[in-house]
């Protein structure tokens, strides 16, 4: 087993943890953080492949992922703040305006 497989497995495991976090957390902020972790997991794979395939395109892709993640976080937190103003909480379970009880 080469080292590349190690990086790939690490990426998948980290992605799994991020997914798990997205599923089990109820705090909207922490759910957004889990998305960040998943993006980072993908970044690890991209950079690892870029290193082992000796092609810098992977690193450029990672740069784009980082930049777009920053933009997404910025707009996501603005939306979160708007929701918070209406609901007074970041607990996703309380956002049940459209649910029939």
């Amino acid at each position, binding site marked *: 087993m*080469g*080292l590349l497989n*190690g*990086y*790939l*497995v*690490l*990426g*998948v*495991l*980290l*992605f*799994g*943890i991020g*997914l*798990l*976090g997205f*599923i*089990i957390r*109820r*705090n909207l*902020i*922490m759910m*957004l*953080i889990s998305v*960040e*972790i998943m993006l*980072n997991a993908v*970044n*690890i794979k991209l*950079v690892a492949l*870029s*290193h082992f*395939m*000796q*092609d*810098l*395109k992977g*690193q*450029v892709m*990672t*740069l784009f992922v*980082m*930049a*777009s993640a*920053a*933009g997404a*976080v*910025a*707009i996501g*937190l*603005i*939306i*979160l*703040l*708007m929701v918070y103003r*209406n609901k007074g909480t*970041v*607990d996703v*379970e309380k956002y049940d305006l459209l649910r029939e009880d």
Partner: protein
Amino acid sequence: MSVVRILFFYFAFVILLSAFMGLRQRSPVKALLWILLLFVHIGGLYLLLNAEVLAFLQIIIYAGAILVLYLIMLLILDVREEERSMLYLKNWQSRIWAGLLVSFFFILGSLTFVNKHRGEHTLDKLKEVGPSKILGRLLFEDFTFPLIILAFLLLVPLLGIGLLFVKRRQDGSA
């Protein structure tokens, strides 16, 4: 075991541990600190992968900007410890399904990959010209159009800041 492997296993261990601890921590500020550890160690992993520029950009952008934004958000909204209950996966069947799904990704991702492509940026070439120069040239020459799209993407939050200043109406709707 060679030095590379020891370093890799150290970084991998800390990354997985801090991601796990961060996502199971109930106090949001402590969770963010674990995530900070995670991001810094991912930067270290990038160093191992000969992506120096990216390693420090990872720390600058993720740890120094995005996570700070989250932290300020937490302090401002005064988010306290959340209750210990799950939003999704409340019964065991769904947990098993989720586990199967994750392991499917795991197996798919690590086994089906065939590593054949060889690019032109060998380590020697990178050392000769300087990795940041090659990275910049590649970025601006070959990815000009995505860069322009990215500019529009980053424009959105700048325009969206105005949403924060919308006054609430009396009936409570925004």
